[in-house]
């Protein structure tokens, strides 16, 4: 039976809550009528409202409460329907969660997983659509995970919850309805941060989160054009393991980084470029390209966002530029740029 990304999250939460009686889940809207985009369905019914609870609209305090619970006896999963609101909790994230194990000499760690949802389209605008994974990745003491497919969401959420360290788990809202045929259970202790989604010779395409889905949707067109490419998805951004990428680049010598949900400056994309550039064993034949959002905040208007977001055309054009040849492709003219699918009617 097919399973969506949201159902995969839900399945992982149920299994971990059952497995660890001390695990606690909380967040504003966790028990709302839609159950947090369907990801927290039946959790409260199964595990009770002491372990699955609604919170006051107090992002900073509740993050600190999570730190307190998790250094005592109760690891936590905390969740925010939009990442942007979590910015109110930077003191507790950066000065408490990330530092605790280190600054108290390794005596207590903070097993907290923080789920952050990133919005896009339907006028989410400047303060409901920020994808700040590179901020979090900058802080020693945090881990950052950003899966793109239901299987990775399931397995990585489970390993994040079992991780004794704080993990920022970022879900792009447009991924929640993405389906895979079935869940393959992996050993959650293993690092399943990066994987090869397509194998080829001429080009390496690196992506994560929603960008990966965009590349997957272009698979047939690329195949029809005889583009032979490695497609690497990185779901664990911190710690960042680039072995798979580097090995691929030794073969293809051409790199396209598709980071369509992030601004370009000090981003995951620019970090990867810098690590590739600093590695003397890698000799690229062509200048690599980093596709990202423009360095301005997200506009709200339907008309502006059309040019703000990265189009498939732009990705095709970048591939043409690297490969130095024209590609033939049809763009779906019915596709609307600001919704994940035709059924999506907002509001968030």
């Amino acid at each position, binding site marked *: 039976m097919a399973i969506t990304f949201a159902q995969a999250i839900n399945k992982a939460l149920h299994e971990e809550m059952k497995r660890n009686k*001390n695990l*606690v889940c909380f967040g504003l809207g966790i028990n709302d009528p839609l159950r947090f985009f369907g990801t927290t369905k039946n959790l409260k019914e199964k595990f009770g409202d*002491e*372990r699955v609870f609604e*919170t*006051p609209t*107090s992002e*900073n*305090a*509740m*993050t*600190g*409460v*999570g*730190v*307190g*619970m*998790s*250094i*005592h*006896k*109760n690891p936590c999963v905390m969740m925010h329907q939009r990442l942007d609101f979590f910015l109110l909790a930077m*003191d*507790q994230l950066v*000065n*408490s969660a990330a530092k*605790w*194990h*280190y*600054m*108290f*000499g*390794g*005596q*207590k*760690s903070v097993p907290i997983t923080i789920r952050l949802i990133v919005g896009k389209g339907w006028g989410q605008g400047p303060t409901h659509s920020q994808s700040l994974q590179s901020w979090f990745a900058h802080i*020693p*003491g945090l*881990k950052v995970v950003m899966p793109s497919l239901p299987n990775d969401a399931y397995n990585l959420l489970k390993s994040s919850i079992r991780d*004794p*360290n704080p993990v920022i788990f970022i879900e792009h809202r447009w991924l929640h309805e993405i389906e895979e045929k079935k869940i393959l259970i992996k050993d959650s202790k293993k690092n399943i941060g990066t994987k090869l989604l397509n194998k080829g010779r001429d080009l390496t395409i690196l992506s994560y989160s929603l960008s990966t889905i965009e590349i997957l949707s272009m698979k047939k067109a690329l195949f029809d054009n005889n583009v032979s490419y490695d497609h690497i998805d990185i779901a664990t951004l911190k710690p960042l393991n680039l072995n798979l990428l580097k090995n691929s680049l030794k073969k293809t010598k051409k790199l396209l980084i598709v980071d369509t949900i992030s601004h370009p400056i000090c981003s995951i994309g620019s970090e990867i470029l810098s690590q590739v550039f600093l590695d003397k064993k890698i000799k690229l034949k062509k200048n690599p390209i980093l596709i990202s959002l423009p360095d301005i905040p997200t506009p709200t208007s339907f008309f502006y966002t059309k040019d703000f977001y990265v189009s498939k055309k732009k990705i095709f054009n970048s591939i043409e530029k690297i490969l130095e040849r024209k590609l033939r492709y049809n763009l779906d003219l019915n596709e609307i740029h600001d919704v994940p699918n035709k059924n999506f009617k907002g509001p968030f």
Partner: protein
Amino acid sequence: MKKNNFYKEIYRLQKTIRLTENKIAKNYKKYKMRCPTHLSIGQEAVAAASGLALKNNDISISYHRSHAHYIAKGGNIKKLFAELFGFKEGCSKGVGGSMHLIDVKKKFYASTAIVSNSIPVGVGIAYSLKLNKQKNIVCIYIGDASLEEGVFYESLNFAIIKKLPVVFICENNFYSVYTHLKDRQPKDREFYKLANSLGAKGYRLRQNNPFKLFKELKKINEKVRKNPFPHFIEIKTYRYLEHCGPNDDTNLGYRTNSELNKWKKNDTINFSANYLVKKKIMTKEKILKLDQEVKKQIDSDFDSMKRLRSPKFKDIMKLTYR
């Protein structure tokens, strides 16, 4: 604790804190303890009374001026000294310094440096105690400036709706660094009333008689233990030395000598010593002997630092993650 024994214990604790802090102040000027250090001299009564009013398995958590709270919960003094010197034998392996103290065994869970940062952490521990059906309470030390941080209100609100076993001890020493309360909060504000109006149980207690303070706090703690609910206690107190460091600072002009001397005249350690004699709980000689005993221990703990060796940077390279 045997009946009446608490008198002696409170006095001993006050004296231990004072002499420890004096020792640090005196030696700080040798520039071997190289971290921002906020001394508690003048504020010992609150720490001693509140620390002893807790049970061993109760948990306390504090802020940047926390040496006294750490010691009052039984925190290891040798490890405190070592932490200030930056040795790996320190309570936080020398990584945290004066503002990041911990003694897990004694259930002193942490002190942290950012104003009000440890408040929600303490509340979270209290929620965890409740989930685990433990009968212990959490004592959260805060200062007057904490009431100016949003997270105080956020955390208290959560503690109230979840009926958590927390006691906030608010040490109001009137200054946030050099800035007086009158420049930071409305003139007529009473902290305990503010806490009451939010829905907590607010109290205003005094430090002048530490024994009385102890009994009052003990009573409140037992109430919280029996019927978990956040209680907020304001106690006015005063630091004798500068905000951060070992010196007198009245020369800076932000506070007056007469204000400082008024508090010094009512020094709570002198009060306790006189009280013990007056009530015939201890003789002058016995007190003197106790003082010497305390001093000898602190001197020997401090001297033992000479035997410690500088730690290696590589020891902390893998400390960021568990």
